[in-house]
């Protein structure tokens, strides 16, 4: 169970906005954060990963406090065991595909690396460097690397936004695979209604830093289609 109750001032294109989120995410949920640019989706993900600090509130995961402004607790990113997939994938150019995945492991385990390479169909690319890969291949390596650390929470920040339509469809299945393999909570940022309907088990709608809806994908996408979450 992920419990979030945070506030943080954000700077957006239209000025300062308060990001205010109070939500609970159940075990095994694949939660999608849906909203316009500047609505606070990425900031929320970064707060959960420990990369940004909220001004007030708390974040708790499976009973462990990650952040609590009242008790002055702020667990560093290294200790949260979160798998974070960045918009630019952040693959290390000095390492091969295999080395990137190995780097994610806390304890070296060649067998696990082989498993991930097979699962994401990267065996033939394992000796390549990331700069030689296509967008879709990079995305698969980034997913495999995030999973190599055996995270308890998977955060995917617009993982498919840079890809063309066909590639998106194929890679949505990879995300489902990753979520099932992890068997925990996954948070995904997306702008695409069809993608949300295919992947998510629940959705949070964000608008100017505020939660304007939280529920199952069908209901939430109805609100979006009817423009009611504006």
């Amino acid at each position: 169970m992920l419990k979030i109750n945070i506030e943080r001032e954000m700077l957006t294109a239209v000025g300062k906005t308060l990001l205010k989120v109070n939500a609970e995410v159940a075990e095994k949920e694949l939660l999608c954060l849906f909203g316009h640019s500047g609505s606070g989706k990425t900031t929320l993900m970064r707060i959960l990963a420990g990369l940004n600090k909220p001004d007030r509130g708390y974040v708790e995961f499976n009973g462990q406090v990650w952040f609590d402004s009242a008790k002055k607790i702020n667990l560093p990113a290294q200790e949260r065991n979160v798998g974070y997939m960045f918009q630019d994938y952040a693959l290390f150019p000095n390492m091969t595909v295999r080395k990137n995945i190995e780097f994610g492991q806390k304890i070296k385990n060649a067998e696990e690396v082989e498993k991930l390479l097979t699962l994401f169909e990267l065996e033939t690319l394992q000796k390549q460097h990331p700069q030689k890969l296509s967008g879709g291949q990079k995305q698969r390596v980034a997913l495999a690397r995030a999973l190599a650390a055996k995270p308890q929470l998977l955060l995917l920040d617009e993982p498919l936004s840079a890809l063309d339509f066909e590639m998106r469809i194929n890679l949505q299945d990879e995300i489902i695979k990753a979520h099932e393999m992890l068997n925990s909570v996954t948070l995904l940022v997306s702008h695409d209604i069809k993608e949300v309907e295919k992947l998510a088990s629940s959705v949070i709608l964000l608008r100017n830093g505020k939660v304007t809806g939280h529920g199952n994908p069908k209901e939430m996408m109805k609100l979006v289609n009817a423009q009611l979450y504006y």
Partner: protein
Amino acid sequence: MNEDFISTLLLTGKLAGWTTLILFIIGLPLAYLLAYKRFFLKPVLEALISMPLVLPPTVLGFYMLVAYSPEHFFGRFLEDTFDWRLAFSFEGILIASVVFSLPFMIQPLQNGLTAIPKSFREAAYTLGKSEFTTFIKVLIPNMIPSIITALAMTFAHCIGEFGVVIMVGGNMPGETRVASIAIYDEVQMLNYDVANQYSFVLFIVSMVILTVIYSINGKKKIFF
């Protein structure tokens, strides 16, 4: 070529080599601090490091001489504790050279670090890696061109150093007489042939170093 010529060039190389090595060891953590950390008086530290770029070498040389003097605290401390006298010694010009070449090491390293996407560091942290591991395994390998530029610029700048060395070290063969001082000295004595030999060597070495830097920087875009 006479012995003097060779020993002067060797001393020049020794000064530049030691300065570059010491500055690399100091420079990496300092550049990291300046690139990524926010702290009180950071602009003052940055200004101090960049001072040798705008300050006449004689000013720094003068202050170094004052500091080395047993009349003052630092010089007296060195003499009382270690029996060292830094003025007009190799160690003295080495310290002055380290201080004077600081920006040539720090700035390329700092630029190299800030050019690396922030997400690289953040990805490593979320994978449980410490700042130190991230620095060694992710940042350093992805800034090799900047490291080579920093080493080469520092070395090349040291080879051509004149003002600080003559102020702090004078012109003592085998101890403080480096090539740039030898050129000046030989011209004063109208030995143009020897001055020309020194000048030619410095010209070629500097040219080779700069060509290496520019060819590396041309290939820099491999990574990003």
